[in-house]
């Protein structure tokens, strides 16, 4: 499938002919998307910027091979995802494919620990958005990434599937199961009046 975009084509031509200002535009255009993927895949804050740098340098070196068979955002998203997978492999950090493994620890560890949190955390507990963020961060890396690409970057199942090399059906299934689990956890820890206040 060809996905030609004259703006992208012009930008790529300028970059491949050595225009560094054009590459700066490229970075600014995709900085947010790459930040999202790396944030979701790499837990260590100190390593995130290095991983992002590696991603953009890979893109810079390989842009001349981009053939418009996909969108530029999907292409760089794929580079980002693969770089993060390599990073996790290097550190031998497992990437869970299924949330069923995580579900058990989710119930017994996370919420029990939070009963002994500091007063500051008790206040923070009231913030549902923060609780959701916290719950998302405890999902496996691939589920977190799918949720972010779908809800924040507004990508389709097909685009996410292309980035993560997963069938569309699998992306949809992961997304549905993750949201179902998150909703269940959210409800479990709040009384009805807390949620609807």
């Amino acid at each position, binding site marked *: 499938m060809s996905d030609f975009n004259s703006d992208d084509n012009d930008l790529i031509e300028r970059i*491949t*002919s*050595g225009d*560094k200002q054009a*590459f*700066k535009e490229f*970075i*600014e255009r995709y*900085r*947010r998307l*790459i*930040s*999202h993927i790396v*944030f*979701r895949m790499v837990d260590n*804050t100190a390593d*995130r*910027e290095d991983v*992002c*740098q590696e991603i*953009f*340098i890979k893109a*810079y070196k390989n842009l001349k091979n981009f053939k418009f068979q996909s969108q530029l955002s999907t292409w760089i998203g794929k580079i980002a995802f693969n770089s993060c997978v390599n990073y996790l492999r290097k550190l031998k950090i497992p990437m869970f494919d299924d949330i069923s493994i995580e579900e058990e620890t989710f119930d017994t560890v996370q919420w029990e620990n939070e009963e002994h949190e500091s007063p500051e955390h008790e206040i923070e507990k009231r913030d*549902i*958005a923060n*609780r*959701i*963020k916290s719950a*998302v961060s405890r999902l496996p890396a691939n589920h977190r990434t799918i*949720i*972010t690409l779908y*809800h*924040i970057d507004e990508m389709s199942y097909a685009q996410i599937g292309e980035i993560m090399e997963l069938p569309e059906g699998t992306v949809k299934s992961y*997304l*549905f199961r993750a*949201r*179902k689990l*998150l*909703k269940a956890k*959210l*409800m479990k820890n709040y009384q*009805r009046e807390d*949620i*609807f206040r």
Partner: protein
Amino acid sequence: MKHLLDSDFQDYLDGNCPPNDNFIRKHLKTCEMCRRRLEQYNILYAGLNKEIAWVLPDSFADNLIAELPDRTAPLKAVYKFLSSEVFLTFAGIAAALGAVLYYIDFQVFMQFFYDIFKLEFDFTPLREEFTNIITLLNLPGLSFLLSGVLVLLIIGALDRFIIQNLIRT
């Protein structure tokens, strides 16, 4: 009463339900429990749609650009060499010699120099050798191409060393 499934709520909020499928809407009008569950999903979606806290710093692009290798560096080096005075001088001399050897009737030309400078060196074998090489290559239009290149090189050399110097001074 048959209640809605989790997948129904998610499809509904994702906009994946067929436009003519009124089942979910009708059910929500009559079922308090499913309305509550839909509201819970709404809250979850609102949380998931919120921008994440971490983003690359503004200085990231400038720092990265400063470290990138220069794509045009090899081309610049070639251009610098081709436009260097040493290369142009030798190219000009070679072009001039080539043109002389190939096109001028040596017997008359050299006789003129022999008579003036009392030279004893015979250039004829050199000319024949050059002609033989061209013949061996046997490429159509090579003479024309070579002469074009030679003329351009001579013009370039003249421009670089004489005309530009005159203009500068």
